[in-house]
């Protein structure tokens, strides 16, 4: 009887364990805009608004609990922060709110969500009346109150959060302009890192398609990488693109091209793929080492080439020596290549090759041959 009970308990445990271990298989705690706009695909993942100074806007963030347990989830609003390399990020909760983070009032600071469910948290945005024209950034942060935090006593203690960008554009004299400021290249094992930097000189962010290429002296493209990235207003952004080094190596330059929508009347996310303006930058020429296999092949070919050159030089030098230092010998009756060669102390093959004689090496009487001067001369 006890065995049956244990067996049943074991079966139940097996049925439950996989559900627990795959807790983050399809996303843990997170959120997204509750009311995305049909005409702007970017609003499926971030909040995008165009609001007048003093205007009020209501919306909601949908908070998901895709874990297997009921969770209490902290929701907050903070300013945006420019991360290293110019990437969009969010300020910490402890930092003073000076921009969009202070404009957002959430209806609740936390929400309890059942497993596999979501809840909408309404919020209101109150735009100050004295705000400047252009884009202002903020974030709505979502953090599990039971989030895993390391308990180490020596080292980095980590906590985790998700955030959703809030981009609010104040209408007025919108400026959309960017340009490359530099492009750097560096070798990285068997690949090449191309790192362009772009400065957005405008007052709104620009989703910019950046393409980098490695181009040879004759214009062939060894490798290309591209991506579209948001570049925040009045800031610089850079990315490290990892390009495959050309197999045979050689002299190359890196080129970067940026395409963006320069139309000041379109909003963030409304003009995906409509990149009407472009900028380019090119690095100086760089010598790229070949791959190891190519290096062996190239080394072998180079050796052959050097050997051929040495042989050619030697042959030419001998030809000159024969022409200027050797003397003329007129073939007499009974002479053969071997007898003439022996008489002048050189191998018969050398005599034949020096006089361009071909097999069967018959000599006609009276033929003039070049032979080394005799020792007495």
């Amino acid at each position, binding site marked *: *009887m006890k065995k049956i009970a244990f067996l*049943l*308990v074991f079966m*139940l445990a097996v049925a439950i364990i996989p559900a627990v*271990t795959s*807790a*983050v298989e*399809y*996303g*843990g*705690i*997170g*959120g*997204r805009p509750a009311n995305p706009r049909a005409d702007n*695909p*970017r609003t*499926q*993942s*971030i909040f995008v608004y165009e609001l007048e100074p003093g205007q009020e806007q209501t919306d909601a963030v949908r908070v*998901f609990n*895709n874990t297997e347990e009921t969770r209490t989830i902290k929701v907050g609003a903070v300013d945006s*922060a420019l*991360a*290293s*390399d110019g*990437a*969009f*990020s*969010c*300020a*910490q909760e*402890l930092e003073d709110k000076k921009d969009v983070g202070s404009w957002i009032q959430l209806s609740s600071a936390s929400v309890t969500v059942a497993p*596999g469910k979501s809840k909408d948290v309404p919020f209101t945005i109150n735009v100050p009346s004295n705000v400047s024209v252009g884009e202002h950034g903020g974030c709505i942060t979502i953090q599990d109150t039971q989030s*895993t935090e*390391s*308990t*180490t*006593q*020596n*080292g*980095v*203690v*980590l*906590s*985790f*959060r*998700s*955030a*959703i*960008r809030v981009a609010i554009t104040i209408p007025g004299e919108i400026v959309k302009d960017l340009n490359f400021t530099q492009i750097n290249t560096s070798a990285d094992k068997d690949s090449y*890192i191309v790192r362009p930097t772009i400065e957005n000189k405008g007052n709104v962010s620009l989703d910019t398609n950046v393409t980098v290429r490695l181009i040879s002296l004759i214009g062939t493209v060894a490798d290309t*990488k*591209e*991506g*579209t*990235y*948001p570049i925040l207003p009045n800031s610089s952004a*850079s990315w*490290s693109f990892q390009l495959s080094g050309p197999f045979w190596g050689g002299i190359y330059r890196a080129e970067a091209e940026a395409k963006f929508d320069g139309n000041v009347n379109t909003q963030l996310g409304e003009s*995906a793929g409509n990149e009407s303006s472009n900028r380019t930058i090119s690095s100086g020429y760089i010598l790229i080492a070949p791959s190891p296999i190519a290096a062996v092949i190239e080394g072998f070919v180079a050796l052959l080439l050097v050997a051929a050159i040495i042989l050619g030089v030697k042959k030419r030098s001998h030809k000159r020596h024969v022409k200027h230092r050797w003397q003329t010998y007129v073939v007499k009756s009974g002479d053969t290549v071997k007898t003439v060669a022996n008489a002048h102390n050189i191998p018969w093959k050398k005599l034949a090759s020096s006089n361009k004689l071909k097999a069967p090496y018959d000599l006609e009487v009276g033929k003039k041959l070049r032979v080394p001067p005799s020792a007495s001369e």
Partner: protein
Amino acid sequence: MNNIKRTIIALLLVAGVMLVPATVSAQVNSNVTQTINTGTLTTAILDGSRNVVASPSAAMTAANFSFNCQAVTGTLGSASQRLYVINPSGTTAGQTWTLTLAATGNWENTGATRSYSYNDPTVAEATAGCANGQLTVNPSAGTVTTDCASTACTTAVITKGGSTAMSGVTPVTILTSAVGTTVWRGYITNIGLSQQIPAEQPADSYTLPMTLTVTAA
């Protein structure tokens, strides 16, 4: 004996409840509707079997007390503690995300009686970070690996941040995805950490609180 019988009956009841819905739905003669719920963008430290690591760590190499400024190193992310980004949201277009790392306080011992900085503001010094302490994070030394099947889920849509000495409260970019990345799951390991410890920092165990933020951007 009675207790065992009761236990078995209770377990059979639980098992029965678990099995009944499957039995009932098998008898329904209608169109089957299958809903796949969208997931959400999230970050976590998972092990090789994608289980949450209960207490992730990024320990630094041990150092002895020194009258000179000294550097200790560490690694964030390893084969058993993978720094995952999971983006199962599957939005049709426009999705991009960034993974950033920011400190929320200084290196402190238990009780916060001793501390040193991660973002030395001193500008002119012989060795950067020696006056008060400075942490350099190097994601470019890390390795990005995808953990998904679709052809769109590739490392080509991801760029690593450059090596950065922490300054002010500026977050360090670890990974950036290109716009249009719909579904992506992958991780980074071996992010380099290097901390300058000021001269004559008292011997103790110090921890630095940091927040990893994955942002839909």
